[in-house]
């Protein structure tokens, strides 16, 4: 069947498509392609050329959306169990932040505060998870209740007023002010480098650009290069072991994707290096994404999340305590909501009783745009990251090109609908 050639001896266009798996490629990388396309559209916008690719804007893109990455990770785990969502996260973010800010306003130690915020988040998650997993209240309803209740508690704690954070240490570790970047250890340790990174060095200036050369963050770039090397090593190891096992995976395709992703990492790190280096919040995001990518891919509990979402009865009959899997997912999103509360408070240098409204929807949208199934069982952390970045780029891009604020939400809605439509249609074709 695979070698069907029509009478003239030439392959038709559709046969070529079939042979080189063009359709499969587009299906697999739809959202990456969409992300690149959207970025190009904003980067070439008349009168605003290249603005979105400015180092400060890229840094802002990550830093501003820190909470989305963290919450969407938690949300992804819930969605995996069968399309269940958590509506309460926005309120929980605000509630934990309110407690934390009030504590610090009273002079509490920042680490103690951080721990308390995470624990409160976890406790709320465990509490809601109890109703969902053990009493079997539908997740939508249990978390809707949480959404109202914790918004109310927030108002009680804050008395309806804003509380500011004055704890500089907290802001530095979790926020993204001028100070909350990873310092350039290498340049600090070797002051001689200052003489190398000057406008007189034609080679480096040509490479980096004269606007950024003086403050170029060497540490950040080194971490970037190191990270890329590690990434390539991991991918090569995976390819070699796959080859050894004889799994039918296209090697050229994997090489292409490895090269593209490596280039992207390097490029991003370069951009960050041009502007103060890595924001601190990126460490937290990176940590969360890394840990959860590992959990979902490599651990038994991760496997159970997918299995429960794919077929709960079969999973239960395989000896898995399925109710505990639900409980884990909801306890976990509570913990991550606590972390998102920390990041949100640090970024805003305080908390307002209305913060966090709509956060749950951003997280849900990122997961679905990133290819998670609304019925559970499929979806990956990597896809969710793309979904979150795509939303972020669209937000940022619309602000840069000056789309009316009222229309920004319309555009977001359309993007969500179109993304899921693509997903549904491409799956339908496969049948």
């Amino acid at each position, binding site marked *: *069947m695979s070698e069907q050639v029509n009478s003239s001896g030439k392959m038709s266009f559709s046969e070529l498509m*079939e042979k080189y798996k063009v359709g499969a490629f587009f299906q697999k990388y739809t959202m990456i392609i969409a992300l690149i396309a959207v970025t190009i559209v904003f980067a070439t916008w008349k009168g605003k050329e290249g603005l979105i690719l400015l180092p400060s804007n890229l840094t802002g893109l990550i830093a501003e959306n820190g909470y989305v990455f963290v919450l969407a990770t938690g949300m992804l785990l819930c969605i995996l169990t069968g399309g269940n969502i958590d509506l309460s996260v926005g309120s929980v973010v605000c509630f934990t932040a309110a407690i934390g800010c009030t504590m610090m306003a009273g002079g509490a130690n920042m680490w103690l505060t951080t721990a308390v915020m995470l624990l409160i988040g976890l406790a709320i998650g465990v509490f809601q998870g109890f109703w969902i997993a053990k009493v079997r209240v539908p997740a939508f309803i249990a978390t809707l209740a949480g959404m109202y209740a914790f918004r109310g508690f927030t108002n009680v704690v804050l008395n309806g007023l804003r509380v500011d954070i004055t704890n500089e240490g907290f802001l530095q570790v979790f926020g993204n002010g001028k100070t909350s970047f990873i310092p350039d250890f290498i340049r600090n340790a070797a002051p001689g480098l200052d003489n190398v990174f000057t406008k007189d060095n034609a080679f480096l200036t040509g490479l980096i650009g004269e606007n950024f050369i003086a403050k170029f963050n060497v540490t950040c770039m080194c971490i970037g290069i190191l990270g890329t090397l590690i990434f390539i090593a991991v991918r090569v190891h995976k390819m070699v*072991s796959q080859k050894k*096992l004889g*799994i*039918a995976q296209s090697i050229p395709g994997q090489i292409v994707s490895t090269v593209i992703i490596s280039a992207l990492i390097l490029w991003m790190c370069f951009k960050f290096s041009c502007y103060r280096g890595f924001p601190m919040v990126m460490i937290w995001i990176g940590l969360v994404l890394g840990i959860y990518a590992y959990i979902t891919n*490599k*651990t*038994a*509990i991760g*496997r159970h999340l*997918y*299995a429960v*979402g*794919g*077929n709960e*009865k*079969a*999973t*239960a*009959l*395989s*000896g*898995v*305590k399925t109710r505990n899997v639900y409980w884990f997912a909801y306890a976990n999103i509570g913990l991550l909501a606590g972390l998102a509360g920390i990041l949100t408070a640090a970024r805003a240098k305080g908390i307002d009783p209305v913060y966090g409204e709509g956060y749950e929807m951003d997280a849900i949208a990122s997961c679905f745009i990133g290819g998670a*199934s609304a019925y559970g*069982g*499929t979806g990956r952390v990597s896809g969710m990251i793309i979904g979150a970045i795509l939303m972020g780029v669209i937000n940022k891009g619309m602000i840069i090109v000056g789309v009316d604020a009222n229309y920004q939400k319309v555009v977001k809605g359309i993007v969500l609908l179109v993304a899921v439509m693509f997903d549904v249609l491409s799956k339908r074709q496969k049948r």
Partner: protein
Amino acid sequence: MAKILLEMKNITKTFPGVKALDNVNLQVEEGEIHALVGENGAGKSTLMNVLSGIYPYGTYEGDIIYDGQVCRFSNIKDSEKLGIVIIHQELALVPEMTIGENMYLGNECGHKFAINWNKTYSEADKYLKMVGLEESSKVQVKTIGTGKQQLVEIAKALAKKAKLLILDEPTSSLNEEDSRALLDLMLSFKKQGMTMIIITHKLNEVSYVADKITVIRDGTTIETIDNHGSEPVSEERIIKGMVGREMTNRFPKREGVQIGEKEMEISHWTVHHPLYPERKVVDDVSMYVRKGEVVGIYGLMGAGRTELAMSIFGQSYGVNFSGELKLNGKPVKMKKSEADAIRHKIAYVTEDRKGNGLVLSQSIKVNTSLANLGAVSSRTVIDADREYAVAEEYRGKLKIKTPSVEQLVGNLSGGNQQKVLLAKWMFAEPDVLLLDEPTRGIDVGAKYEIYCIINDLAAAGKCVVLISSELPEVLGMSDRIYIMNEAKMVGEMKADEATQENIMALILRSGRGA
């Protein structure tokens, strides 16, 4: 010669990469029952989907000539207008709605915006009577049994003024008694002049009702056999056409059977229904299995076989358990937990592989390791290489036909899915395997392979409990047979003294009278 009602000429239907039908021809005479047989994936359902307009005109090649006219259906409504009605294998009824509402769903009486409920229910009652149902059409569908639901489907087809009725495996979820009633109903419809096409795997049904039998294999028509001879067409004759070879032995021989000690024994086992705790679903059952033995459990649908097996498997079905479970002669107090059952080396291979057995959206590899993830991971971290190797090993051992163990289980054929399910439980390394209808809905060739696996398991000293609704299967495979009826164990026979007749007689005698 009677008038030809339907003729399908040179039907060819291609899916991307696969030719599902290749020049298929089918002729159906008015007033006959025409059986369509073939292995799974042979193209029977595809052909019927072409006929009923599910695959609209233009997506296939060839002609459909119905009642002398060339038809070009663009959807089901078009074919139904001419009286071609298809009843699918999976029942298409909404459980929460009444029988009447279901029967006229999409075909409402009166006006679209003003449904005439009086007419709906009175008409519905009329058709229900025709199929021999005494229920009122105002009863919710979920309150009646599967057998009656199938009859409602037929009444629904009648309400659409069917002239040509297509039944796709109508008896696959029915017990023998209900099946027989359904087949008799078909025969009585035939007397009234209705034309029917029946798709089925059960060959005894074919020879019972069909006037003609068309065999389809690999998307082409092989032959049409006339069933009007002095003797009914033998099953072997039909199977020969289906598989392209004579199946002299449907059940593989077991050699060197060595039966050992009692491995598992239950006594006075009683289980109650989870929703109606006063009802006993397993009533005072005692049985045992020995090492290396295949024990069959036969009973009609609803006899309590699945309930018995599931209640042994970590009490995964039912409430208010009583009785004693012994493993290797020692009494075991098992918790209400499937994980505990697996720890005690018991495996339950479900009858419903899609619903309760497999995660269809995941790969063969993931499904294979699911019940014993601990064995391929250290401290809850999964070792991908080891998991892959295990999946590969079982793919080879059970001859699972797939390009790779990364293939999604949902894309496999029924027989291969069943093998993946078996692989999963064999990897859990049980001593006792409770196999619930392990060959349901899979084709003859795959069945034979499953039987070989069962024999291998027994030869390796495992205990196999084989639950089946197919008497020949139980008789052909088991060393010893238990017979259940209405929640009770009503008999035990050695394989050599059991026959279809004395088993059925036992069930009929023990029953409260059907």
